[in-house]
């Protein structure tokens, strides 16, 4: 079953002079098993939007249902929330236990695993995100570097193997190999469990590489919704909105400007190389 968002509006501090419509009448459906990307300028409402998906924030109007559970209803919300694992934009909000291992084990324990099982799941999850449990398990989360904190926060959610994995800027602060690890981990989770991934990212590269569909938010409104092919063929519109195209798309555009004939569908290095190889045989 999908996540259905209907006419969702969220207004911060309604009725005050600081009233701000952060999400404005957004309707969309996220299909089961899908990799759904969300992009948008700073302050476009991405974090506000996704916090509705686990009922952390309530709509001012409109409705969110997760697998049929209405997230505005207190009882149903509990059931819906159990399906959604959320990694926040700032890992500091997520880490609170006295050791990294306990922190990562917190989720699995909550799902009913025994102390021992939970620690095993936790150690497993730490390994998949490149945090050696031997080295980091007994450290305090507050003694981690920025990227290590991000990995710990990711591990905590991955350990729960949620049906819906909601990630707010998961790659920020990760080193290049960490970004590769996370992509591989997500791929594995999708393959093994068929889990649905919703990822907010400022990195057009990451979204272009992984997402099957992309929503573009602009000033709280759903500006566009489509496949990467559709979204990244609108380079100029993206730039006008504070976004950008993947670098390979910019290269393709620069080549067109110089009079070369490059197809619209080229926005990743893989595609560029494939296309370039083909040319040689013409």
């Amino acid at each position, binding site marked *: 079953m999908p996540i259905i968002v209907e006419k969702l509006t969220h207004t*911060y*501090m309604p009725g005050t002079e*600081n009233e701000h419509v952060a999400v404005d009448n957004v309707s969309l459906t996220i299909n089961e098993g899908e990799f759904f990307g969300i992009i*948008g*300028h*700073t*302050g476009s409402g991405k*974090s506000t939007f996704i916090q509705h998906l686990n009922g952390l924030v309530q709509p001012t109007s409109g409705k969110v249902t997760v697998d049929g559970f209405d997230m505005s209803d207190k009882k149903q919300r509990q059931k819906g929330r159990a399906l959604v694992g959320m990694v926040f*934009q*700032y890992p*500091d909000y997520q880490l609170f236990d006295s050791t990294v291992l306990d922190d990562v084990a917190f989720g699995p324990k909550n799902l009913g695993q025994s102390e021992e099982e939970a620690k095993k799941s936790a150690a497993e999850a730490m390994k998949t995100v490149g945090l050696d449990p031997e*080295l980091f398990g007994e450290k305090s989360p507050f*003694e*981690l*570097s*920025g*990227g*290590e904190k*991000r*990995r710990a926060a990711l591990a905590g959610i991955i350990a729960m193997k949620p049906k819906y994995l909601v990630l707010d*800027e998961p790659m*920020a*602060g*990760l*080193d*290049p*190999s*960490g970004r590769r690890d996370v992509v591989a981990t997500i791929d594995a989770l999708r393959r093994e469990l068929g889990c649905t991934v919703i990822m907010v990212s*400022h990195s*057009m*590269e990451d979204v272009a590489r992984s997402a099957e569909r992309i929503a573009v938010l602009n000033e709280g409104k759903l500006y566009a919704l489509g496949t990467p092919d559709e979204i990244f063929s609108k380079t100029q519109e993206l*730039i006008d909105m*504070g*976004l*950008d195209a*993947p*670098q*390979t798309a*910019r*290269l393709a555009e*620069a*080549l067109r*400007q*110089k*009079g*070369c*004939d*490059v197809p619209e569908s080229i926005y990743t*290095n893989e595609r*560029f*190389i494939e296309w*370039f*190889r083909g*040319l*040689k045989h*013409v």
Partner: protein
Amino acid sequence: MISISEVEYSYEDGEDAKKALSGVSLEIRDGEFVAIVGHNGSGKSTLAKMLNALILPDSGTVTVFGMDTADEKLTLDIRKKVGIVFQNPDNQIVTTVVEEDVGFGPENLGVPTQEIRKRVDRALEAVGMTDYARSAPHMLSGGQKQRIAIAGVLAIRPDVLVLDEATAMLDPIGRKAVLDIAKRMNKELGITVVMITQYMEEAVIADRVVVMNEGKVAMQGTPREIFRRGDELRKIRLDVPVMVELREKLAAESLIPDTDALTVEEMAEEICPLLLKN
């Protein structure tokens, strides 16, 4: 000039404690734009905190314009010279109104009130947050908070600007704006910039790239020199910029000649003639 000599540092006590920095020596010249890259936990933030005496070396020395950071009497003077924007803006936000927050640094350093007003306005303008001067920082989005943190350091008017992944939460245009500010301050005002980043594309704009690995300086050189060493970089959990990766792969299949293009513009220059010939 900043001079780092034989620095050792560990967050824990004891003989066998893991070292966050070990045997680090580095000179940063006045007016230089240096990028620091390195895997998570390689010691970049620790090194940054050494530059304005937030952390002192266990052994070895750090001197900033001739001032030894270990000398407590000089701490305030050092902090007037070196401003750092940290990874997590929340840890830097201290007041409940944006403009007070931006003025907090200069006020602490004893800048006169009149002057603070001016600096705050200029700094907010530079990061495009003038409209939010009276807002509450905790109500801002992630990227907006990050801009406020950057404005706070700009208001100190430091001689050395240290950006510790200051663009990590910004949208592409915001990221470009911050890089442009840093670049402009460097070129026009001669301010030294030390930029820590996980985005190899950003490191390309620096005069020099310093690569950290497990608490040590593993390589340094111009971006062109460093990013020709893709295999070595990948071994220490890093990578090359997207355009360099493309160039490497095309060259490996002999589809293009091996060049040292780094950016979209340079790649377009290289490839266009080949395409037009085809």
